[in-house]
């Protein structure tokens, strides 16, 4: 038996959370959009507390991580002491942060609650992991733009837990501006004021890349452009497990509970099979077939940046 990495999922509701626990998720990142970045659904403190209750009563030791990884303005940061204290009281298993204001407030308001550093595209090296580790973080969530070699190297060079995303879409652009509203205002007429929130199906197409659809949506905290492909690492999951990566995240944003359930089951099966017998592990093509069966044909399954070389 090898040590199993954590299978981390998102959830849009308590119902989906229960369903994904049954499908095999070990942990969830949930919260409210005032504090957490790009969440599939809203979990206010009350729902968060219920989620913790559900997690505690599950047979496996399911963990609940609170998403507090937005960039914070003064007004939001003023509410952090109260919010983090309540998270600690509820008993969340970690606070996920991407703005140092959360770190300094947590030292006072939520001492003892583990902290996960997740600044998305800017968490790029083992040296950064060590930096945030010395300031209290127990986990680094690596940028999706790193490749496999870099991910494995970080794991070898830091004491912190390392988390990577293995499935789903990624955020590729975040603006504080209401860019869709601004543009629709420019067009005027009946387009002005059309709802561009999460789930409304808006997307961008770049004229020279007609095959790619980039979802775009807005909320009170700005405009988000998302990747046109979904990462899918199930065929090569053993590389991450061999490297002893601690947490594998499935991003459920803009996906149905049915889809997410299928994905969690597939990854659960792969992780369990590997852990039972690492040396004899064989990838089972049925896991991928199950994913392909529910995958939106307009969205390519890709390896993200895991096997890419970038220039600069």
């Amino acid at each position, binding site marked *: 038996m090898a040590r199993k990495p954590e299978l981390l999922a998102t959830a849009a509701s308590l119902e989906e959370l229960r369903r994904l626990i049954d499908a095999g998720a070990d942990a969830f990142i949930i919260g409210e959009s005032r504090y957490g970045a790009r969440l599939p659904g809203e979990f206010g403190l009350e729902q968060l507390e219920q989620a913790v209750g559900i997690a505690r009563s599950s047979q496996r030791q399911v963990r609940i991580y609170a998403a507090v990884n937005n*960039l*914070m*303005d*003064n007004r*939001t*940061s003023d509410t952090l002491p109260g919010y983090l204290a309540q998270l600690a009281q509820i008993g969340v298993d970690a606070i996920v942060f991407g*703005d*140092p*204001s959360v*770190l*300094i*407030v947590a030292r006072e308001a939520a001492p003892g609650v583990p902290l996960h550093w997740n600044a998305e*595209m*800017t968490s*790029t*090296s*083992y*040296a*950064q992991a*060590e*930096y945030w580790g010395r300031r209290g973080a127990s986990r680094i969530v690596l940028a999706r*733009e*790193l490749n496999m070699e870099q991910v494995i190297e*970080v794991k070898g*060079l830091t004491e912190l837990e390392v988390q990577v995303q293995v499935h789903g879409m990624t955020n*590729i*652009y*975040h*603006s*504080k*501006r*209401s*860019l*869709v*509203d*601004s*543009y629709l*205002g*420019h*067009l005027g007429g009946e*387009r002005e004021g059309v709802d561009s929130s999460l789930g*409304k*199906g*808006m997307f*961008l*197409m*770049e*004229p020279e*890349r007609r095959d790619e*659809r980039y979802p*775009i949506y807005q909320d009170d905290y700005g*405009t988000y*452009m998302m*990747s*046109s492909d979904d990462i899918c690492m199930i065929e090569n999951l053993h590389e991450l497990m061999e490297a002893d990566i601690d947490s594998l995240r499935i991003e459920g944003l803009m996906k149905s509970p049915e889809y997410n359930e299928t994905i969690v089951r597939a990854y659960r099966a792969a992780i369990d099979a590997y852990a039972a017998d690492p040396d004899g592990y064989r990838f089972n093509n049925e896991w991928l077939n199950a994913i392909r069966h529910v995958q939106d044909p307009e969205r390519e399954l890709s390896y993200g*940046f895991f096997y890419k*070389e*970038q*220039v*600069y």
Partner: protein
Amino acid sequence: MAMILNHPGLKGNRHRLERPELLAPAGNLEKLKFAVHYGADAVYIGGQKYGLRSGADNFSFEEMREGVEFAERYGAKVFVATNIYAHNEDIEGLEAYLRKLEEVGIAAIIAADPAIVETAQRVAPGLEVHLSTQQSVLNWRTVQFWKDEGLPRVVLARETSLEEIAEIKSHVDIEIEAFIHGAMCSSFSGRCVLSNHFTDRDSNRGGCCQSCRWKYDLYVDGDTVNGEEDNQFTMGSKDLCMIRHIPELIEVGVDSFKIEGRMKSLHYVATVVNAYRQAIDSYFEDSASYELKPEWLDEVNKAANRPLNTGFFFDTPSTEEHIYEPEDKAAPYDFAGVVLEYDAETGLAVIQQRNHFKPGQEIEFFGPGGTFFKQQVGELYDLEGASLDAARHPLQHIVLRTEQPVNPMDMMRKRIR
């Protein structure tokens, strides 16, 4: 402004004793010298590594040393942008690079990656570390965090309003640097990997290909909504210009006024620095009677690459602050030459050619402090006295008569329409 000036963090419309620093970009050594000569208190440059403008000329250590020596004659400082988010392989060599910056006399680095921040503090304590806007710092607690980490200065996110800056200044005693002029990321700085996805170029290590300024089709309910070809969706923002709001910036306590543009021209740097220098100095001569001089605005517009706006200082940018129509980029002026010498007795100047010009064209001369006049190009000669029908060759030395005295490093531009 009433709301901002009533903020408890402010002591009313007070007289500030300390002048804010005017911080200018310098893409190469020549630009550095002109930026300083035209009034920058400090310049920021890029070295061969660790900077976010891999397309700029960037400085060798020898050029840095020369730049520092030149700047020192004016009492000005040189900062180096080391503002990438480093990957594992970038860490090797970092210590040696930072030590070298310290050795050649660089005053500060501008860094975003905490690993670079910490390494600089450890190996090159003579370098100040300024936190880059790439960290997108928006709130005073985060500013406090970086102060506690030993940083003397934070460059705020461009998304911070004047009111929020006032709050930050009231909570934390630290130098605040803010962008006041130039092009802007429309995303939170650092929170954009469009280039990575479109072109496999790492935007946070200098590979940005400005995909935010490309045109996109926006689909709503499965159909594109843009219609006309010149009417597509884009994220491209107008450029920042705060020349109309110098008193507000000074009064909320911004310590360093930063001009964007390491990729911009010599003409741009000199023109924009010149205008802001005059505005800041004018305020400190007599704040009570300060008023915006129309010529400062005219000058800034002559160097503008895009329409201008005030970013997030007063409100969140909306329809009017973005560029949907085809861009009318060109200012109606072109940089034409630099004055190398002037002979007061003959009234003849030697000009280094930077763009084609010929007799009969309308030209303007300007220099530091707002000296300015227009004339027509008269007869042109080369250094041997041979008559020329036009100044055709880049960097050619051209003799022409100027209607008023000029000085070395004064600049000449021509009207193009």
